[in-house]
């Protein structure tokens, strides 16, 4: 067990022990260890590292930089205004005990297609701060997920923070599971109407080998909104249906114990349509969703 107290120390140990498993909240890793699926020889315990459990505004207040050790509970409590979809995703994660320990950075490091933060990070065009003794680099979220439970992180890198653009318009996150709380997503969907640019962002969870972006849906909606960002009430209901259908088409789900591929596609079409209708309603009311 390696227990650095500084970020610098953590990176040095990471470079010396590239096989060590970083652990912070432990809500993913400990499940694997307890089930005998993982037996890491060494753990790199980041819980004592200073200054990674907070957030700050950077980029003239346009971006929220979330430290790697910041819990979901604090995201819900402190960022539901700046990052409403991320806070909503955090609310759906596990139990209160898990939300007290789990982190977005841990979610990213595991890179599961079912990670609840991921669709939101995609929809918001987040960037991941990956750092090693070699230096800091920013990974665009679209380049981060490279395969099932595989990310673009190098063996000597640690996630230091996640940069999430602050919401400029309505955001939504919705997650389907057969239980009303504490459930792994059967499918999930995030939508971000960025009114500043303006542009449309989406993210799909649990419906492919990695978290996915529904590009065709984004494009279609962007075209439909075109010059109507200020008058969304005039957006046709058919747009919602098409949008949902395109979200479903973007997925490449499988059958497993949590649901069938067919159900996942169906549910995504519903979530896409519903999330859009709520976002347009919020947009019409000139509000950032809370």
């Amino acid at each position: 067990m390696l227990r650095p107290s500084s970020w610098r120390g953590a990176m040095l140990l990471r470079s010396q022990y590239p096989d060590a498993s970083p652990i912070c909240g432990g809500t993913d890793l400990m499940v694997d260890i307890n089930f005998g699926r993982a037996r890491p020889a060494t753990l790199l315990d980041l819980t004592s590292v200073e200054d990674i459990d907070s957030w700050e505004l950077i980029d003239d207040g346009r971006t929220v930089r979330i430290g790697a050790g910041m819990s979901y509970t604090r995201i819900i409590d402190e960022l539901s205004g700046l990052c409403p979809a991320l806070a909503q995703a955090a609310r759906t994660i596990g139990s209160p005990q898990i939300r007290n320990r789990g982190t977005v950075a841990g979610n990213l490091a595991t890179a599961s297609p079912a990670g609840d933060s991921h669709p939101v990070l995609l929809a918001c065009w987040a960037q991941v701060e990956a750092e090693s003794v070699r230096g800091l680099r920013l990974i665009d979220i679209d380049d981060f997920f490279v395969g099932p439970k595989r990310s673009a992180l190098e063996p000597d890198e640690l996630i230091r923070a996640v940069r999430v653009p602050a919401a400029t318009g309505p955001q939504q996150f919705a997650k389907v599971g057969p239980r009303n709380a504490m459930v792994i997503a059967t499918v999930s969907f995030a939508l971000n109407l960025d009114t500043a640019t303006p542009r449309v962002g989406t993210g799909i969870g649990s419906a492919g080998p990695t978290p996915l972006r529904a590009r065709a849906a984004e494009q279609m909606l962007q075209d439909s909104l075109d010059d109507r960002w200020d008058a969304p009430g005039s957006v046709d209901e058919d747009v919602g249906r098409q949008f949902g259908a395109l979200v479903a088409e973007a997925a490449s789900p499988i059958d497993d114990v949590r649901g069938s591929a067919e159900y996942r596609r169906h549910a995504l079409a519903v979530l896409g349509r519903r999330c859009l209708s709520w976002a347009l309603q919020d947009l019409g009311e000139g509000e950032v969703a809370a």
Partner: protein
Amino acid sequence: MTVIETPTRITTPSVVDGVGASATRPDGVPKVDGSFIYSSDEYHDGSLWGVTLRSPHPRARILAIDTSQAEGIDGVRCVLTHRDVPGSKTYGMKVYDEPVLAFDEVRYQGEPVAVVAASHPEIARRACELIVVDYEELVPNTDPEMSLTGRVDGLFGGGLARHVRIRHGDVGAARALADVVVEGRYEMGTQDPAFLGPESGLAVPLGDGGVELYVSCQNLHLDQQQVADCLGLPLDKVRLVLSGVGGAFGGKEDLNVHIHACMLALRTGRPVRMVYSREESFFGHVHRHPAIADIELGATRDGRLLFTKVRLVLDGGAYTSTSQVVIANGCYFAAGAYDVANVEIDGFATYTNNPPCGAMRGFGAVQSCYAIESAMDRLAAALEMHPLELRMRNAIGEGDMLPTGQPVDGPAPVQEILAYLRDLPLPAGVDHGTADMRARPGGVGNVTRGEGIRRGVGYALGMKAIGFSGGMDDTCTARVTVWIRDGEPVAEVYCAGPELGQGVVTLEAQIARTELGVRTVELRDKDTDIAESGASSASRQSWMTAGAVAGACGLVRDEILARGARALGRPAGELTLDGPEIRDPAGHPLVPVAEVLGPEAVSHAFTYRHRPTEPVDDERGQGNAHVAFAYAAHRAVVDVDVELGLVKVVEMATAQDVGKAMNPAGVEGQIEGGTVQGLGLAVMEELQITDGRVRNPSFTDYLIPTMLDVPPMPMKIFEFPHPDSPYGLNGVGEPPNLSSTPAILNALRDATGLELPRAPVRPSDLITEPPDGRAEPE
């Protein structure tokens, strides 16, 4: 010698908490503050850890087992296989057919093949991985319909464990008279008991060649017999002590770590602890039988049931466990709590290479209640009659004849139970535009603001026997001892009836306080040194223990009063015992009990028996098989999102007759727990099994209800005293588990208009609308 910490001698110093009071559980605070000793906490200095190697295959021939590599690891003390089983190579609750450790063939995925003792659990686990088992994989038989032929190679009995036939009246003649006939097939998946305290225990070898086992279980004496047989030891060399049980629900009636831990302890001469992991636990205990039920009901135009015909198939998996009795119990109540003169029931329990199934809360009656209550709603629809009205017209009552030919005796207040549900106002609708997301289907998932939501209401009624049926003359023995401490009488209660969490220890103390007036009651460890109490199962333990403890208290009281009579020179019949005093009929104190007893203790044992029962005959299934009956009903209110198939159970109202609420808070807890376990079976709980392999052996994917899935439960507890039982009580634990599931299914059918022939429902089963939302209501 090290002290073994177990939760012994709990003192409850209050005279007010007698029978009928919501006395505080002696184990309540320790369970909340974490100090309670569960069987997984049992510790002994110098103990080794035992770990089990299990078959990865649902069916395979064992060609060879090589343990040499595993034995060579530092820290490994022994590796045992079937060759090392000292006595009987098999065990079982009814039939000895389950190998202690597999030989020749493995018959289900997860069957134990070898056990290892090592100085550390991780060393033992790694040693298990180094045991080389040469398997020849065989094609598993997993279809119960095939097993019904009784001609499947490789299965016991060719696949058929038991066929139960019940014939009453003349179904053929009744069918000709029926105005309306409905048929239906209803399936149920495999539910897991999902207790939170995994199988675990500590075996301590004794100097005389015997062994002491601290374990969580449901029947100390039946376990003792099987353990002794397999160890090749006489009963007096095998002592079992009940450790803290973290839930059981039937899943701890069969043995788990017992024999393995004892074998390892006896071989190494060291105490051995075993604790199953969560994943292993799913393979380490029996499940609720999955079911297929075909039902045909016939009725007159005005809703009088004329006949009921049922074919029920329960798959018992690889070994017998209690399958033959579960199918019998399922058949006894397959016609429901209804007065119907013409009945044909055929029940089959099968063997397959699926995971073994056995006892689980409701014991077969859950499956048949789900089927008959589903069919009753179909009949109500065909008759265009309110489902509650149909039930009230046919509800069974005192004196009515069961399909087994036994007249219903004891209170049968089914009309009262149903009337409560009829008259209870329905819960208000939810304004989904403004309501907290936790009040909507999908909960915190934030999937709807009212889109696609339909409300449904459903009813179900259940009936089950209480206690062991069919000629099993079971007994329960308790010993009560009273002595004087600091001038006050203290009572000790000693009874082996296992405390699983249901609260029997609370009742033991309540009864002693009521019968003896004592303030202080101490509860002795439950072990096999006293005569048997029978299993904590069949909703029987409160009844049986109450009879035994009250009987023993009566003997103690009589002796104290007789001694007082001698001291006072008055007839004992004029005296009463009230805690520290012996009083005259007017209540005046005559002499302190302390003075009468002095330093002597008064101690008596009493063995309680329920009324005798008889087995049913093989041909027609007729006989007075039951001790007593209990009834409960539910009204479920659900909101369903018909585009996503997600459910919010809004309310579960229930009414039940309990005879006497011995501990009202405990009764409410049992009814709430049983209702929630039924809710889980309705909407989420299923062990998914494909080709004999369990696909979701974890609490990540075997979902049980959370706080946010559990609705308010308005409840009416009726107390119609049972004439045959101590204090008039009746069994409480199982009935709420029966009607909960079909009430929810019926509510979901009401909401969606779908047939929903299978429980638990999955989200994809509940979708009535296309994803584009074009069928939204105006």
